[in-house]
């Protein structure tokens, strides 16, 4: 049984998605989806424990030995990403789905949860598989589910947002498919570890250069790295808060994982950074993302849209750590994967609480929120401090590593810009806080905290981000181990 855990990790949510169509009752399906997410979380933790104890796991799907068959390969990086995705799913799935946020009636909620589980399946599949074409298939499963979920937002603008997300996402997936094809053409294999070996003799051909370029740009679109981020703000703003929280905390993280896998495992650092000059492209793009995202966020008048723009800046931190090519900075990136997932997931759920009570996430409607919904307001403040990177929060730990990595690599200017961008982040966070503590809100005596079913998941994520800010040894240990194995180029 336990040797089949890698397959179960993906098959369980896939089969459960189909089972949702049989169960149908909204409440039953919600409990069922939550249970599945928890089971996936348990499997991911078990996989992580096994990888830590016994090294990478290789699982031949259907008994066909790799490189001919599809291989599921779990090393410290995969296991870490699997834990992030399933942990977020476990916290987000119980968050109740309210009619104020989705346009489908309660009798159709089972379809929503089926899509949610399919999105989870796809994301876990990308993270676990060692086969390049398999990545494409899972990418499309998760993306198609994500387009559907975004289009279910209450506001009609969710539809146009979902459509541009679909167009951009399909274009990105198309680029990835071209890249995979070109790499296959030169090597005759789709297995990532095998590709790494067989690409070596043909590295200096134009076909491989094109394959690399197509794969990186395609992944960049999925990752929403600046300037390929146009689809993201609208999609997250108009999606139901639960969906925005889930996708912002997992989809971009998995895309970042795939980028790291391509650069470090498949193509190799020397090829990516020396022959192709990835650093020269990614470093300025990441720094630009920090400022464009944060400054745009400071101008927003809607909480969800503000959080969406802040995501673009936070993605910039992750790609920055990769572009710096320092072990410390890469550790910082991988830490930020986890920390930002907790913080942004929690913040979007808090926005969901706000929408539930106020029927709007506009900042202007949130005046005096601290007295009307103290728990929710507190969650937003703590999460916001995490985005800025105040000591004691999880965001501080990852930024500490990023700045340290930048200084070690002699990138003084980058380190300075990193700190400066945190100040810009402080502006948009303060803007939200200022509105919430304003004293001229309507009926300040009325307390209308969101129900426990909503604030408990929110605080589970925000509380975890606080915990991992104060006790970061566990996450630092895994992240630095994963960073070391990536830089060592071990497939």
């Amino acid at each position, binding site marked *: 049984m336990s040797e089949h855990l890698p397959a179960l990790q993906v098959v369980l949510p896939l089969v459960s998605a189909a089972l949702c169509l049989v169960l149908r009752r909204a409440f039953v399906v919600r409990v069922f989806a939550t249970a599945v997410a928890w089971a996936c979380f348990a499997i991911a933790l078990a996989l992580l424990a096994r990888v830590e104890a016994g090294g990478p796991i290789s699982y031949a799907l259907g008994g066909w030995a790799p490189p001919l068959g599809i291989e599921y390969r779990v090393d410290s990086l995969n296991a870490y990403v699997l834990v992030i995705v399933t942990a977020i799913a476990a916290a987000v799935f119980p968050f109740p789905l309210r009619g104020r946020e989705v346009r489908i009636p309660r009798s159709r909620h089972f379809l929503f949860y089926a899509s949610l589980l399919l999105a989870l399946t796809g994301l876990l599949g990308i993270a676990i598989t060692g086969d390049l*074409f398999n990545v*494409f*298939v899972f990418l*499309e499963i998760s993306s*198609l589910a994500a*387009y*559907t979920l975004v*289009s279910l937002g209450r*506001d*009609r*603008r969710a*539809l*146009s947002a*979902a*459509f541009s997300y*679909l*167009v951009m996402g*399909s*274009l990105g*997936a*198309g680029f990835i*498919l*071209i890249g995979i*094809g070109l790499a*296959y*053409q030169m090597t005759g294999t789709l297995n990532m570890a095998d590709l790494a070996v067989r690409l070596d003799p043909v590295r200096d051909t134009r076909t491989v250069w094109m394959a690399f370029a197509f794969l990186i740009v395609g992944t960049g679109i999925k990752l929403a790295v600046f300037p390929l981020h146009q689809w993201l703000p609208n999609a997250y703003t108009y999606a139901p808060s639960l969906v925005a929280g889930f996708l912002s905390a997992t989809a971009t993280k998995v895309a970042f994982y795939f980028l790291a896998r391509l650069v470090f495992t498949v193509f190799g650092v020397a090829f990516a950074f020396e022959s192709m000059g990835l650093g020269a492209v990614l470093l300025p793009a990441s720094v630009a993302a920090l400022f464009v995202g944060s400054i745009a966020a400071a101008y927003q*008048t*809607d909480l969800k849209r503000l959080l969406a723009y802040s995501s673009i800046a936070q993605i910039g931190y992750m790609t920055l750590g990769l572009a710096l090519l320092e072990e410390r900075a890469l550790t910082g990136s991988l830490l930020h994967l986890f920390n930002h997932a907790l913080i942004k997931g929690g913040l979007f759920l808090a926005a969901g609480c706000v929408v539930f009570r106020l029927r709007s996430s*506009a900042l*202007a*409607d949130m005046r005096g929120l601290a007295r009307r919904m103290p728990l929710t307001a507190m969650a937003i403040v703590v999460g916001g401090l995490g985005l800025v990177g105040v000591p004691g929060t999880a965001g501080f730990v990852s930024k500490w590593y990023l700045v340290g990595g930048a200084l070690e690599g002699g990138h003084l200017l980058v380190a300075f810009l990193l700190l400066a961008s945190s100040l810009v982040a402080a502006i948009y966070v303060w803007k939200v806080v200022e509105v919430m503590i304003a004293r001229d809100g309507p009926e300040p005596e009325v307390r209308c905290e969101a129900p426990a079913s909503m604030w408990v998941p929110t605080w589970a994520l925000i509380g975890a981000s606080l915990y991992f800010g104060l006790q970061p040894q566990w996450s630092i240990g895994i992240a630095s181990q994963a960073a070391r194995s990536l830089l060592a180029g071990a497939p």
Partner: protein
Amino acid sequence: MALLELGQYGFVIVLLMIGLYVLIARDNLVKKMMGLGIFQAAIILLYISMAKVRGGTAPILIEGGGDVVYSNPLPHVLMLTAIVVAVATTGLGLAIIVRIFESYGTIEESELRELDRSSDKADRGAR
């Protein structure tokens, strides 16, 4: 001659560009989906053309056939999956377009953007 042998790639690139152009330049959302379809078809052609082995036959094992050259079956199989994905994407895209038409009354992107902008303004003006 070398140019002719690479002719398939030229064809694929031209198709890719036509698809991309339609996707970007057309205002009508259904036409955008058509552009996406052309783009995806071009990728499928790219894969299928790389599977061709000169003088190769269909990859069905011929018993006692001796020295038979087969085409590479793997890219064909991969493209079966890609076709399914393309169909699903088109289906979902068209479904979203139908709902866009129901709630906006138009499927022209420029008009949609105009309507979105005015509802953004209404959101801000309501405060």
